[in-house]
């Protein structure tokens, strides 16, 4: 995992620009709304997509930067609060800006806030980062709950509406799904692209050996802060979708539970590849909605906690790691298996 490993075999690369499975998944995601009910389109589909986007920002920081940040949901929630404040909400602490002003403003301010969090968090490394980002996230939670002048305290904001652009209400199931899909796809491609760029490669090198990179003249501090800023922008996109879907935002959205849920999603899917957070988000959302059929609805947290513990115990690379192990197990059972495995590792 020291560099971006392409598991594609060299011989196949020129024949197909994409792996056939990728094409199938993309096709499925595009036709999905036509075979699903509105509940499945929004509650399961769109929600998995934007939770995946928020978890993707954590995957980017943790997987490529080695910085496990627990404040990604705080960043997303901050973007949600900004949308509520710049747009319209049920109490009159709002600016009612048009959509083309409120969205860029929210994204910009959130990226700035995430960069500031980064400036603080990268003062330390390793497990300290978890502690500091958790402390920052919870401080913001308690602050929004106490503060009525800006954040309207405990009740937060309701009636936050997605804009109507080009005659389309973007909160209707179909447009909202495709919007979420577009944001998710763009974020995914952006993360893959950045990971392979010079910046991404030096970030991964810093993750593996910060002292050596420092000695080579790379600005370790700046790379890490910029990574926080980029991840913050991705999380902000997810946060905007989140507030549009729920139509409301309150301190409960950024409580310690949701903060940790993002970590659960990312770890569940796997922190090694950008597709992991989305896999994790689908499993998480499905469990959340259908835990009622498995166990008592009230005990969802016990279930998800146990699933999380199981993953951490038995497959540190998440479901992706589990899948990879299964595939490799099947391959090494075959005759030519050993060769491909050695080549790709």
């Amino acid at each position, binding site marked *: 995992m020291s560099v971006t490993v392409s598991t594609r075999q060299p011989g196949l690369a020129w024949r197909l620009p994409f792996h056939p499975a990728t094409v199938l998944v993309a096709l499925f995601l595009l036709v999905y709304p036509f075979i699903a009910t509105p509940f499945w389109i929004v509650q399961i589909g769109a929600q998995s997509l934007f939770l995946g986007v928020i978890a993707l920002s954590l995957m980017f920081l943790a997987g490529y930067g080695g910085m*496990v940040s627990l404040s990604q949901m705080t960043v997303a929630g901050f973007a949600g609060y900004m949308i509520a404040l710049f747009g319209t909400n049920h109490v009159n602490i709002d600016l009612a800006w048009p959509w083309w002003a409120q969205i860029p403003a929210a994204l910009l301010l959130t990226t700035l806030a995430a960069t500031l969090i980064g400036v*603080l968090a990268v*003062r*330390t*490394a*390793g*497990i*300290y980062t*978890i*502690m*500091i980002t*958790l*402390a*920052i996230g*919870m*401080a913001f939670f*308690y*602050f929004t709950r*106490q*503060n*009525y*002048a800006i954040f309207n305290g405990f009740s937060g904001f309701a009636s936050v509406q997605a804009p109507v652009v080009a005659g389309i209400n973007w909160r209707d199931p179909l447009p909202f799904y495709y919007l979420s899909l577009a944001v998710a796809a763009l974020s995914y491609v952006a993360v893959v692209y950045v990971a392979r760029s010079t910046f991404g490669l030096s970030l991964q090198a810093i993750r593996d050996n910060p002292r050596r990179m420092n000695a080579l003249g790379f600005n370790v501090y700046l790379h890490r802060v910029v990574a926080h800023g980029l991840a913050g922008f991705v999380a902000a996109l997810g946060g905007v979708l989140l507030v549009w879907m729920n139509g409301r935002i309150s301190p409960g959205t950024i*409580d*310690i*539970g949701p903060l*940790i849920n993002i*970590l*659960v999603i990312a*770890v569940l899917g796997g922190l090694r590849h950008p597709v992991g957070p989305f896999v994790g988000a689908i499993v998480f959302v499905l469990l959340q909605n259908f835990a009622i059929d498995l166990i008592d609805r*009230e*005990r*969802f*947290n*016990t279930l*998800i*906690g*146990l699933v*999380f*513990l199981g993953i*951490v*115990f038995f497959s*540190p690379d998440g479901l992706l790691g589990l899948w990879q192990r299964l595939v490799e197990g099947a391959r090494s059972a075959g005759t030519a298996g050993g060769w491909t495995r050695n080549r790709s590792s």
Partner: protein
Amino acid sequence: MKLFILTFLNGLTQAALYFLVASGFTLVFGLMRQVNLAHGSLYLLGAYIGWSVANITGSWFIGVAAGFLAMSVAGVLLQVGIFRRMEGQDLRQTLVTIGLSIVLADLMLATWGGKTYQFDPPDWLFFGKVPLYFVKYSLFRLVLLGTAIVIGIGLWLFLNRTPIGMMIRAGVDDRAMLACSGVNVQRVFAITFAIGAGLAGFAGVVGGTTYSIAPGEDAHYLLASLVVVIVGGMGSVTGAAIGALLIGLSEQLGLAYSPTYSVVYTFVIMVAVLAFRPQGIMGRPA
């Protein structure tokens, strides 16, 4: 003036409570390099168990002892049953403690429900007042303050003057070397965890008596422990005392004088420390 003295004393007692919780957290961290994010859950679980035992036996003191003992045992079980299996993988250990805290919080909600509990300590202790200069202050809170100071000094003596304390300090400096010199490191780990977790349970009962116990207190005291050790320096008991004093006082003074922004002061202290001394006030560079 009266308000200030009262607030100041409230800050001190709050600091005492934070110190009790955070000293266990920092001790475990210092020795095992393991961030126990389930520490807040140990606090709340200790409080609930203490309350149940006190309710059955009718004695508050037995409740306090039960909170301490139950969490000590829980700590040893955690160390032997879980953390020992993934030694040296600090990220994985941290993730496990997060998973545990999710499950524990939910099970506690299932067992004790969402309501708020109040302890029933002896009247002379809880309603007793002590005259201090301008004000009369709660005897219970002064006893809490005294207890924290005694425990703080006790911990310091234990760490600096006893053979086991020596082993723990040696373990903080170089775990591998300690194991090489023939010490049963696993036993030292278990003892440290028992003390740390037990202190959290003890603080749970005492803190639950001072205020109340309800779901969400686990997150509150986890945050307090985090901020206190970030400010004070990881792994240092003295640092935990200094951090607890700063945070407890700023929180109570903030609540009294500018309630909407009291969290901000805590945060500003943390940021200031991180900016000028990233390893914490008493911490050593990693």
